[in-house]
């Protein structure tokens, strides 16, 4: 009997959107990342789990071009720099790539938002930085983006400090997706929200991923969030990736002792 050759999955036949190899980062004596590599394909959601201090946030900061790595390369499908290691960009180019191609939602909204500006202004900021100079267009774009993030439009001109935690996360999300980024980074986007609001924010994220097909990288220690959103998952510990694979596979049948511990530690 002749066996048919196995084709790789559809998803992986495209060129990866994100390619990072051999990322290293140390802060003084502390080694935050040791030789971390990752790829993400178009429209894929890559989850990163791990305990506090495992290097998740450092990894996200590197991918957000906030800091440069000690070693390693990072390529992103971000014209005109798609053939260039993004760590070699100068300050000005890096800012342009960040504005146009990378969106980020922080766990702490204070990091991502101007608390005393209006919510719509927070969203418009990204468009302004990208060069939009028409007030009417800014209003329209901000309204659209907030609507897509399920933000109540009646409050679009309230400052984030007057909004609830869930709404602040939606403003962050609207700001992150305002320019349809190539890569969306989510740093614990639902941690600190109560369970029902968490579910609503996750719904929004899921719908956005489905509608816009943005490649997402989601960092969380909540395995429920990872299970809901992520296609693939990487488990990190001590700055290393200890296990990686399909979400179902990793969460149902963990191989590495640490992952087993993590999965079983659920309440």
């Amino acid at each position: 009997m002749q066996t048919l050759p196995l084709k790789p999955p559809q998803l992986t036949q495209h060129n990866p959107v994100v390619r990072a190899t051999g990322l290293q980062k140390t802060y003084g004596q502390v080694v935050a990342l040791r030789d971390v590599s990752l790829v993400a394909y178009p429209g894929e959601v890559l989850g990163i789990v791990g305990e506090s201090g495992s290097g998740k946030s450092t990894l996200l900061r590197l991918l957000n071009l906030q800091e440069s790595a000690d070693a390693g390369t990072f390529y992103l499908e971000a014209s005109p720099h798609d053939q260039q290691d993004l760590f070699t960009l100068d300050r000005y180019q890096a800012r342009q790539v960040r504005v146009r191609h990378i969106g980020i939602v922080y766990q702490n909204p204070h990091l991502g938002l101007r608390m005393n500006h209006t919510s719509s202004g927070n969203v418009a900021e990204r468009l302004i930085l990208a060069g939009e100079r028409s007030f009417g267009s800014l209003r329209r774009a901000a309204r659209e983006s907030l609507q897509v993030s399920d933000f109540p439009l009646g409050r679009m001109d309230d400052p984030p400090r007057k909004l609830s935690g869930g709404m602040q996360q939606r403003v962050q999300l609207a700001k992150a997706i305002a320019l349809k980024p190539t890569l969306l980074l989510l740093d614990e986007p639902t941690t600190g929200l109560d369970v029902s609001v968490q579910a609503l924010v996750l719904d929004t994220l899921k719908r956005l991923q489905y509608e816009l097909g943005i490649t997402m990288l989601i960092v969380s220690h909540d395995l429920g969030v990872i299970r809901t959103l992520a296609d693939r998952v990487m488990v990190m510990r001590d700055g290393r990736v200890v296990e990686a694979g399909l979400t179902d596979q990793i969460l149902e049948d963990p191989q590495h002792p640490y992952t087993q511990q993590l999965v079983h530690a659920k309440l």
Partner: protein
Amino acid sequence: MSTLAELAFSRQDYAYAFLDAFAKRELRRKILKAIAIPGYQVPYASREVPMARGWGTGGLQVTLALVGPKDTVKVIDQGDDDSVNAANLRRFIARMAGVKTTTDALEASLIQSRHRIPEEILRPDQILVLQVPVPEPLSWVEPSYTRARELHADAEYGLAWLGIYEDLVRYRSNTHGADYPVLVNGRYLMAPSPIPRWDTPKLHLAQHLTLLSAGREKRLYAVPPHTEVRPLEFSDVPFAVEDQRGWADAQTGVQNKFMTEIPLEGGQSRYQLSDSDYARKAALRLEIGATYYDDQGTFYIPGFLAERKASVAPSHAEQSLGTD
């Protein structure tokens, strides 16, 4: 043959114009640098002067570095020559430099001002020194001065538009009452000191030299003559000066010059010319030089300010805001 002692000035215990020679030399070099890079904030060693920081020490140091025995000095505070701050500064400069003082903007060769530029067009041989409290125009949107300087270096001024956006959304019109951010020579974003929006266009292609100095923040910058100075604006919401159409000075009946509003009992208002020396000349029917805005309120450079709409409200911003 003459000796060195004969050639040099005799030793004086008190330096001319208060500042010692080294301080003046440093200031003059920094002023030259500022003129060479229009709008760029040049750091300088702000000296002690017998006055508290925040009361015009920056402007005073520039004035003292520039003043000479043949100068005629005018000092303005909010348009007024006789307020305490202006009177103190004028008396101090006159005592330290032995110069003539005046209140007439056209007679003065050196004008130090806080919050106003005179209504009459300044000539190429005049120098205007503006006192600046906050020299960093990005400070409202970028709290870190280090990062603000990076943005200046990259000419990355998007954030400044965020400030205007916020104003338009919150107050439905441009309420940036003073210190409206301007782009100098197409390169540096500049805080023109807290002059009203009314005075901002006066810097554009001006014939005179404008020097701006912040004593507390230790920064000075300049707008050389004939330099482009454009206020930031959205493509669909043009920059506009204060709408004071219909306001008439209570004493002289003059219109279309910058006014101060004086609230009266019963919700009424009285208006008074902000430029007190212009008001004096108007009241005495003395000869008045050419002004930046004519009696119909038209700016002297045609086309620089967008045509005003007939009615005061609703503003353009309100229309584009929609009703939601």
